[in-house]
C-alpha cells in the first residue's frame, strides 16, 4: 500500500472522505480507513488532509536526473511526405509550453527524402528541427519509427514530447514510452504547465467523456502525451521565424523492422476523412436505407462536408464502419456537425459532443440529440435537407 493514514494524527474530520472521488475511505472508530480495493492512489485525500495524517509513499529510486531534460518536442507526423495538420496544432500548443518553461520548441521529422519539409516546421515556430532520413522510414512502420524516436530522445533528452493522437501516433508512442519506461497520457484535450513544480498538466477525457482527469508524470522524463486532433489551435505561419535544422547521421541510428508494409488502399467511398473534416453530415437509423444516404451525400457535397454515421446506421448496413462516429467508432470535432435522423444515444454523443456547432434534424421533438444541439430542427430530414441545399446555393 502506498497511501497510508497515520492514525494518531487523524482527528476524524472526514475531509478526506469527501475528497475521495472513488468512495474508498470509510470512518472506523473515528479514524479514516482506506479500502485498497477501491483506492486508485490518486492522492486527492493527501491534499485534503489539514493534519498531515495521510501520506503517499513513493519509491525514491525511480527518479531519473530530470534536470538533464530540456526542450519541448513535437513529433512531425508525415504521410507520403506531407506533414499532417495535427503537427501544426502541436507546434501551436508546444510554443506556449516552451515559453512557460523558457525552453526551445523542437520538431522531429522522420521519413525518406523529407528534409525539404523541415522549413515548414520552422515557419510554424520550431526553433530546432531534427531530421532523420532513411529508406526504412519511407512508409510508416512501428518498429523503425519507434527505434528512431527512442534513440533521438535518449540522445537529446527532451522534457516534453507531444504527438498527435492519430492512428500512427497511437501505435508509435506507446512503444517509445515503454522503451523509455516513462509515462504517457493518451488523447489529451488540454495541456498546461504547473507553475510551481514545472510539471506538464495533461487533461483528458475518461469513461467515454463523462469524466475529465488531469494527469502528471512527476519522476520520469520525458513527459509524453498524445493530443487529440482539432482541439488545439494551429500555429500561425511566420516566414521570418528562424530555426536550426539538425540532420541526424543515419549511420548513428539502428533501424530494423520485423513487419513489412505491402500496400495501402484508400477507401474510395471516403472522399473526406471524417477525423479531419471541418463539416460532417451524419445520418442515423432515421435515414432508413443506404439509398437514402444519397440525400445526405448530396447535401454534404454542396457544403464540402464528409459523411458520418451512427452505430445504428452502420449496423443496419447503410454505411461502412469507417464512417462510424461514437464510442466504438471515431471521435470527431468538426466546426459544424449535422446529425440527421440520429436520436442521440450517449454512445454517439461522446464521439461528437465537442463539435463547435451541432445541428440536429429529427422528427421526434423529444430526441435526446436536441439536448446537446446548438440548433435543433424538428422536421423531416428529407424535406429539410433539399431546402437547405437550395438556400445555401442561393448565396
Amino acid at each position, binding site marked *: *500500500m502506498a497511501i497510508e493514514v497515520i492514525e494518531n494524527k487523524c482527528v476524524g474530520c472526514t475531509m478526506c472522505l469527501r475528497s*475521495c472521488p472513488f468512495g474508498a475511505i470509510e470512518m472506523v472508530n473515528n479514524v479514516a480507513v482506506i479500502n485498497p*480495493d477501491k483506492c486508485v*492512489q*490518486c*492522492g486527492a485525500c493527501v491534499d485534503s488532509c489539514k493534519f498531515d495524517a495521510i501520506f503517499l509513499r*513513493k*519509491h525514491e529510486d*525511480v527518479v531519473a536526473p530530470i534536470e538533464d531534460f530540456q526542450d519541448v518536442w513535437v513529433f512531425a507526423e508525415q504521410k507520403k511526405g506531407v506533414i499532417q495538420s495535427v503537427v501544426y496544432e502541436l507546434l501551436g500548443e508546444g510554443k506556449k509550453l516552451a515559453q512557460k518553461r523558457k525552453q526551445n520548441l523542437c520538431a522531429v521529422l522522420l521519413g525518406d527524402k523529407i528534409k525539404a519539409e523541415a522549413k515548414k516546421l520552422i515557419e510554424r515556430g520550431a526553433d530546432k528541427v531534427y531530421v532523420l532520413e532513411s529508406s526504412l522510414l519511407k512508409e510508416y*512502420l*512501428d518498429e523503425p519509427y519507434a527505434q528512431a524516436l527512442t534513440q533521438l530522445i535518449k540522445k537529446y533528452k527532451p522534457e516534453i514530447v507531444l504527438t498527435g493522437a*492519430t*492512428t500512427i501516433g*497511437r*501505435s508509435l508512442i*506507446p*512503444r517509445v514510452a*515503454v522503451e523509455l519506461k516513462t*509515462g*504517457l*497520457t493518451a488523447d489529451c484535450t488540454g495541456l498546461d504547465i504547473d507553475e510551481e513544480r514545472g510539471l506538464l498538466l495533461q487533461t483528458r*477525457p475518461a*469513461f*467515454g467523456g*463523462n*469524466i*475529465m*482527469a*488531469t494527469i*502528471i508524470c*512527476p519522476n520520469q522524463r520525458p513527459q509524453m502525451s498524445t493530443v487529440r486532433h482539432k482541439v488545439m489551435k494551429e500555429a500561425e505561419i511566420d516566414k521570418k521565424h528562424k530555426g536550426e535544422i539538425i540532420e541526424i547521421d543515419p549511420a548513428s541510428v539502428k533501424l530494423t*523492422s*520485423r*513487419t*513489412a508494409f*505491402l500496400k*495501402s*488502399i484508400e*477507401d474510395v467511398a*471516403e472522399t473526406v*476523412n471524417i477525423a*479531419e473534416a471541418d463539416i460532417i453530415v451524419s445520418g442515423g437509423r432515421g435515414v432508413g436505407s443506404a439509398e437514402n444516404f444519397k440525400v445526405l451525400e448530396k447535401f454534404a457535397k454542396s457544403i464540402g462536408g464528409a459523411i458520418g454515421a451512427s452505430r445504428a446506421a452502420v449496423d443496419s448496413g447503410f454505411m461502412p*464502419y469507417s464512417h462510424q462516429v461514437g*464510442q*466504438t467508432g471515431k471521435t470527431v470535432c468538426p466546426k*459544424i456537425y449535422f446529425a440527421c435522423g440520429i436520436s442521440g444515444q450517449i*454512445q454517439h454523443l461522446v464521439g461528437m459532443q465537442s463539435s463547435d*456547432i451541432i*445541428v440536429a434534424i429529427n422528427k421526434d421533438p423529444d430526441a435526446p440529440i*436536441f*439536448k446537446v*444541439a*446548438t*440548433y*435543433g430542427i*424538428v*422536421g423531416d430530414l428529407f424535406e429539410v435537407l433539399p*431546402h*437547405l441545399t437550395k438556400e445555401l446555393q442561393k*448565396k
Partner: protein
Amino acid sequence: MNIVVCIKQVPDTTNVRINPETNTLIREGVQSIVNPFDMYAIEEALRLRERFQGKVTVITMGPPQAEAALREAISLGADEAILLSDRAFGGSDTLATSYALASGIKKIGQVDVIICGKQAIDGDTAQVGPGISVWLDIPQVTFVKKIEDVEEKKGTKYFRLERMTEEGHEVVEAPLPCLLTVVKEINEPRIPSLKGMMRSKKAEIIKWTAADVDADPKKVGLDGSPTQVVRIFSPTPRQGGQVLTGEAAELAAKLCELLKGAL
C-alpha cells in the same frame, strides 16, 4: 496455434457520473462488462482456432470480481482463463499494466499470437497492447480489421493483415509470434452457446499473483507507474440551444441564417 487474448473488465461507461455534491464517482448500479473491443479480440481468436487448431487462453489483470469477465470469455469458447490479481497491482497505469500482463503471458509459455481490443472504453488509451509487445519484444500490428492469411516462408509463419488508417487501410505482413490489436470491423462476435454457459460456470479460473508471474514489485502498481492522476472533474455539460419548429422551407431558411458566418 497458441492464442492469448488480453481482456479487461470495464464499467459500462455510459452510466458513470460524478456526484456534484460529493465529487465522487457514482458506482452504484453501474454494470461491469467485458470491454466491447475485447469481444472482437475473443471472437477473432476463436476463429483462428477454428482455422488452425490450437488453444485460446484469455488473461486479465484486475480485482477478484474480474473473474466474471473471464467466465464470459469461456462461455464463448475460450479454453483457459487466467486472472492476474494482487494488491500489488493496484494503481497500475498503462506502463505497469502492460508489464504485469507481459509477465503473465511469459509464464503461459510458447505463444503464437496475442490479440487485444484496440482500446478499453473506460480509459480509452490504446496503450497497453503496444506496451505488452515491447515488454515481450515481439512485433505489433494495431487497428487490425482483417486477418487475410497465414503464410510460411523459410520456416517462419507470417500473418498478412489489413489495418485501418484514417484514409482507408493498409496491408502489412507480420511474423509470428506477434501482437495484434483489433477494431470492430474485424468480425461479428458470436453469442454464448448453452453448452458454453454451462462450461463457464464450472470452469476453473487460474489465479496468479505478482509473485507467481515473477513480476518485479518495483515495476507494478503505484511504484511502477510514472503517471499520477491529480484531479478528476466533470466536464462542463454541453448546453442545448435553440429548437426550431415549422415548415421545412422556413426551417431551412432560418437555419441558413443562423449558420451564416460558420459555413
